[in-house]
């Protein structure tokens, strides 16, 4: 990514002297600055009021707590980038949370049937990818609106999970789970390291490679990408496969955290959508980015953690998340309209 500090000053050179930049740029800058400021302000308020918030152990905990939702949100980010962040017609993967539930059920069941970690990991990854592939086929080949296609797949995942688990908790333990749930190098839970690792990998892929840039082109203006000779469908399909893989990874974290596959994974969907959409405000272009998603995952985690420390009911977090979605979607769509 190019540095964000850019002067729009255009030298009045030659004949094609440029008029001042379009309106909207200042507003975008304000939004971005305001978002970062909010992040810092919320942090400062919790630091000042919530007992123990600033403890290194607590901060490390936050990273661990948001790991599952964070990894899912990274997958959502891929899909939003490739499909464009139009809230209705753009890319979205509503099946992510239930895909996690299904993957967790597969992992726990395969382990419970006496297979080793190798087979269980393979089966889990295959499940996540398969769900991603179904999404990709529905969206790219069948041309179904992502919102509807992934909604349908979401229900399929939920149903299959029930078939596997009969709506019960399937306990699981394995060496891999022990590692993930275990030791805390430098105070940060292994869960947190997995989130940071996934973020780093996807950051390189999405923000630093030509393939990532092209995925942005596909989402930003499909016709322009096609005119540039890019295989548009392949890129969109790849984003859904990546998203499915993220669900599989997140399912491992979830199983490790809860010592088994549990029901109710679908409840995470709203948080995942919030996290991915919220991340948009941290980018100069108002597009989803991997660092933006990490920041917003940490922000949401910080809110939950701070409320807990202040003894505010965690039920409030849902309300706050809903308000955040409204604010972010309103601000970004207004700005996009103006820039047009």
């Amino acid at each position, binding site marked *: *990514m*190019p*540095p964000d500090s*850019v*002067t*729009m*000053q*255009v*030298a009045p*050179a*030659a*004949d*094609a002297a*440029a*008029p001042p*930049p*379009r309106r*909207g*740029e200042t507003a975008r800058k304000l939004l971005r600055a305001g978002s970062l400021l909010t992040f810092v302000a919320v942090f400062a308020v919790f630091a000042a009021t919530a007992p123990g918030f600033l403890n290194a152990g607590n901060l490390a905990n936050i990273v661990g707590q948001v790991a599952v939702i964070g990894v899912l949100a990274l997958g959502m980010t891929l899909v939003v980038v490739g499909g464009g962040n139009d809230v209705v017609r753009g890319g979205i993967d509503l099946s992510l949370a239930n895909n996690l539930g299904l993957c967790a059920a597969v992992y726990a069941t395969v382990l419970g049937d006496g297979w080793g970690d190798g087979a269980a990991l393979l089966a889990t990854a295959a499940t996540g990818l398969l769900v991603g592939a179904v999404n990709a086929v529905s969206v790219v080949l069948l041309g179904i609106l992502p919102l509807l296609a992934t909604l349908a797949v979401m229900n399929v995942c939920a149903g299959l999970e029930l078939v596997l688990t009969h709506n019960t908790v399937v306990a699981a333990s394995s060496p891999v789970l022990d590692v993930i749930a275990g030791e805390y190098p430098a105070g940060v839970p292994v869960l947190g390291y997995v989130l940071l690792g996934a973020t780093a990998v996807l950051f*390189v892929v999405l923000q*630093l*490679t*030509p*393939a*990532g*840039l*092209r995925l*942005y*082109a596909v989402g*930003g*203006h499909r*016709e*322009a*990408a096609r*005119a*540039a*000779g*890019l295989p548009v469908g392949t890129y969109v399909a790849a984003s859904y496969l990546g998203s499915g893989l993220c669900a599989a990874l997140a399912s491992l974290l979830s199983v490790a955290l809860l010592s088994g596959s549990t029901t109710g994974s679908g409840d995470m969907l709203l948080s995942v959508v919030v996290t991915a959409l919220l991340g948009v405000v941290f980018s*100069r*272009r*108002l*597009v989803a980015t991997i660092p933006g998603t990490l920041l917003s995952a940490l922000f949401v985690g910080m809110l939950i953690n701070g409320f807990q420390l202040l003894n505010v009911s965690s039920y409030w977090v849902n309300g706050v998340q809903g308000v955040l979605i409204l604010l972010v979607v309103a601000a970004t769509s207004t700005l996009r309209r103006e*820039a*047009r």
Partner: protein
Amino acid sequence: MAVPSGSATAAEMSMSQTTEPIAAPFALEMRDLVKDFAGVRALDRANLHVRRGSVHGLIGQNGAGKSTLIKLLAGIHAPDAGSITIDGVVQSHLTPHRAEQLGVHFIHQDRLLVPTFTVAESLFLGAEPRRFGLPLLHGARMRRRAAEILRDTFDVALPPDALVGELNAAQQQLVQITRALLNRPKVLVFDEPTAALVRREVDSLFAIIGRLRDQGITIVYISHYLHEIQEICGSVTVLRNGTDVGTVDPRATPMTDLVSMMVARDIHDMFPRSRRVAGAPVLSVAGLGLAGAFNDVSLTVRRGEIVGMTGLVGSGAKELLRCLFGLQRADAGRVEIDGAALRPRSPAAAVAGGLALVPEDRRGHGVALSLSVRENTTIASLDRVARGPLIDFAGERAEVDRLIRELAIKTPDRDTMVRNLSGGNQQKVVLAKWLSRQSSLYLLDEPTVGVDVGAKVEIYRLIDGLAANGAGVLVLSSDLLELLGLCDRILVMYRGRIVCDTPAAATDSDALLLHATGVGGTAHAA
């Protein structure tokens, strides 16, 4: 992409073209091209021969076949008959990719750029410079090279980090031209490049085109503006009704001759004209303005009068109509309906004020395709067929049947889905919708586009009937013959102003086209 990814060096990117040994005198030869779309012949044995290294103009009225011809060249459609020869080689299976490989590139009217990309990213998308030969973007080199190329080619200091969405139209076009140049094109096709530009920007575009020609690039330049053609083109091909009617030297040809070539002469007697009497003004517009579209527009439409309006893309005529109906808000000026000030801030207010709009995009805005003829007809006047809060279905049926008879709408019955009607009959349903409201001013936007000749005549008869019954009618059309036959008075817009206001009987299509292309000066009838 023609440029291999990541391997292009600065030397390769330099814009100087070496003159290759000339194989064929023509860079492009399109012969006897025929193309039908759903039974409508868009091209009928059209020819276009473009000499290597020339700037070749292509003109014609709307629907003459310009865009079809260009789409065949771009490989977007395949011709039904005829041949396309590029650089002396016949191309039988042209695809967009193949066309680019052969060095034919297009500067599209709608700029195909990703708005959230920087200038540098837009230039190199698809051929990004890489770090250490790995699949890693070399952002720094990309920015540096983008700045160099823009400076060397166009002498422009466009910051490579600026977002495309924040550039103005001219700057975006520069980015697109530069992008095309990176592929070292042999032929560059400009499709209406000046539609969104102001005069100063047009001048610099022409300077750029001149420079490209001097470097040996063949240019095809499509435009509505005849003076632009005369300014930069060495030759021009005129299309009319899908056929090329001639290729001439625009500088040696009087403007009026070019216009005569563009306009067909045979006016059929398809315009019924009842005795209409112009009464009191129903629409008075004074000093209406909308930034970037039109300014200081004043006009009057009287009851019983059909006023025509025409203008090319970018003339502001479309936007004016949208403002009158409240789809867009004007910045300045006032609008009066029957002497009472109207603030058409929304279509709802306009409808309440007695306005009716028949939009150009019939399927998008005019009718609800999945509703029946009955529902579409009364959708804007349900209060007239309602009894309290409930719809009086018997009354509605009677009203709809009356309109179906009156307008001769060809439909199996009143409950047929509008989707299943022909274009002309769909348009009649749109008219019926407003007739059922008995509006006092009808705004018609291209009322007969995509309608077959038979239905056209019936629609003309309906419009004539509206005026005869005392309504005012304002027709926006790019079909000049239609306006001449149908209207009492014709207004021509050019670059945001009404440049001509004349009785239809006192003008002809040549004169109107001259005004529309900005060479006719300003003429206002008393």
